């Protein structure tokens, strides 16, 4: 850069009016919209159209179908009355919710432990392990029940081994039943809990833990009073998301041998593809969608509340 010139003297080109701002408020308008906002809506139209045609319209058709019989004639609420009072549907609903709750709980417990261990008890391969966990999300969901069948199935490895070691014991037979489903779902959905928690925990300053420790807190107390509260929004969000996903899960149930475990998605499949009872499938689908959307809204609302509260507390 060239060397600095001597000090410049600039005559004040415009008189130095002594302007003191008169006390005046601008009109209280909302955040100023640049006039392109209408254009943004127009640009959004194409993706919106795709969702409208291939998602909203089909859902509407399902709704319409639920009021019709096999041949398309309208039957009013007959289908609904029948299905809502049928034992099969009620059992399936209960089973769906039970499995979802158990799986969510298991995934939360296991996932929180894993996230805590990876974040706060560091070891040399921790990064690699984290990436490995993230790859599990890309597995097909039926991989796990398949592996479990091979391992724990009635004619599986564990049973053969046990049969040789201790012939008197009854064979393990949980894979094709609710415990098998729950175990498989926990295995599959734990990474969904671990990932957001890892992100949140990585932002927690390490000094916070050191200070808490120096003040006399033991590790469990630190987890309870410092780490978990910070992770609460992420935990709640993961819980909500996992509950939603396990409620909707189909692949795992299908591969687990659905005779013993009938959930709502499974019921929809059997009614429509296996027995071609479309109206019945439509009604059950509506019930399932109502449940799913309800859980989804609850999850978004809880997350907003909790992360809002966290931000307020952090300030």
């Amino acid at each position, binding site marked *: 850069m060239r060397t600095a010139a001597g000090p410049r003297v600039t005559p004040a080109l415009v008189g130095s009016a002594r302007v003191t701002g008169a006390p005046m408020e601008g009109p209280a308008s909302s955040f100023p919209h*640049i006039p392109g*906002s209408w254009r*943004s809506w127009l*640009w*959004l139209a*194409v*993706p*919106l159209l*795709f*969702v409208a045609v*291939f*998602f909203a*319209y*089909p*859902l509407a*058709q*399902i709704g319409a*179908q639920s009021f019709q019989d096999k041949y398309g004639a309208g039957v009013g609420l007959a289908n609904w009355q029948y299905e809502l009072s049928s034992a099969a549907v009620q059992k399936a609903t209960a089973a769906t919710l039970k499995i979802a709750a158990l799986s969510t709980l298991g995934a939360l417990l*296991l996932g929180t*432990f*894993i996230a805590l*261990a990876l974040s*706060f*008890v560091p070891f040399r391969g921790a990064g690699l392990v984290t990436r490995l*966990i993230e790859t599990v999300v*890309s*597995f*097909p*969901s*039926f*991989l*796990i029940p*398949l*592996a*479990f*069948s*091979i*391992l724990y199935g009635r004619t599986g*490895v564990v049973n*053969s*081994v046990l049969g040789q070691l201790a012939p008197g014991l009854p064979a393990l037979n949980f894979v094709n039943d609710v415990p098998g489903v729950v175990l498989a779902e926990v*295995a599959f959905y734990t*990474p969904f809990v671990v990932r957001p928690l890892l992100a949140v925990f990585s932002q927690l300053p390490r000094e916070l*833990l050191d200070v808490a*420790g120096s003040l006399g807190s033991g*590790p469990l107390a*630190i987890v309870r009073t410092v780490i978990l509260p910070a992770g609460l929004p992420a935990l709640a969000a993961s819980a909500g998301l996992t509950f939603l996903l396990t409620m909707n*899960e*189909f692949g795992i149930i299908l591969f687990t041998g659905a005779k013993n475990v009938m959930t709502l*998605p499974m019921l*929809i*499949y059997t009614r*429509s*593809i296996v027995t071609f009872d*479309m109206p019945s499938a439509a009604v059950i*689908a509506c019930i*399932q969608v109502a449940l*799913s*959307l309800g859980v*989804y809204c609850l999850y978004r609302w809880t997350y907003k509340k909790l992360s809002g509260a966290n931000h307020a507390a952090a300030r």
Partner: protein
Amino acid sequence: MLLHAKSARLATWTLLAAALLLLVAAPLLVTFMAAFAGSWNGVLPTGPTLRHVAGALAADNFSSLVVSLQTAVFASLLAVLLGTWAAVCSASAAASPGLARVADAVFHLPAAVPSVVVGLGLLTAFSKPPLLLNGTVAIVVVAQSMLVLAFAYSTVSAAARGQDPMVALAAASLGASRLRVLLTVRLPLLLPDIAAAAGLAVALCMGELGATVMVYPASWRTLPVTVFALVDRGALFDAAANTLVLLAVTVTVLAVIAKCRGNSAVR
């Protein structure tokens, strides 16, 4: 550093290893071993054989693999294109907060609904006029892309909103039109996340079962459907072999995407 006592750390690591064994290692390992197993009656399989894997790559199953790959690629392309389009719109400076909220709600919705319902809907709606898609390849592609659209949108929109708005404003102040800013600044900076979204989408589509099983025509069977048929018949080892092939192909596609992303300009 949460735990200071060596014993506590060792205990934690042991538990962690056990948990990871259950989650990640066991399913993969078992599938791998079963794919090459002649029979498996003890702790370890016996009689290593290639016939399951050979079967997995034989005519029928191989065509399932190709079908899966094609469907996954097209569906992912569609989902990533639309998802990025919607994400860029909703994150743009000209978008009102209302638009962003509507976009978030609408594009996350398909993920809240079970895949079988998405499939059932497509089946119901497009088995009759005005648009007949029943029994075509298109309906399978649409089904899968609708399911992964939410993930693609979510990934790209999070990245787009995290972009420093000043960079786009600086570009505008230098005289660039909105289109030029989009093409030369905003999209290139989103490329890593778009690639990540594409990878995730492909992986999800390859393993998709719920919607596919509702809408697939007999001539367009994807690999997961084939695997299910095998399991239903009790041919677990063949199913494991097919699953292994599925995994291998998925991982390869992901690696290719990651490589392409690695070659482009780095942030």
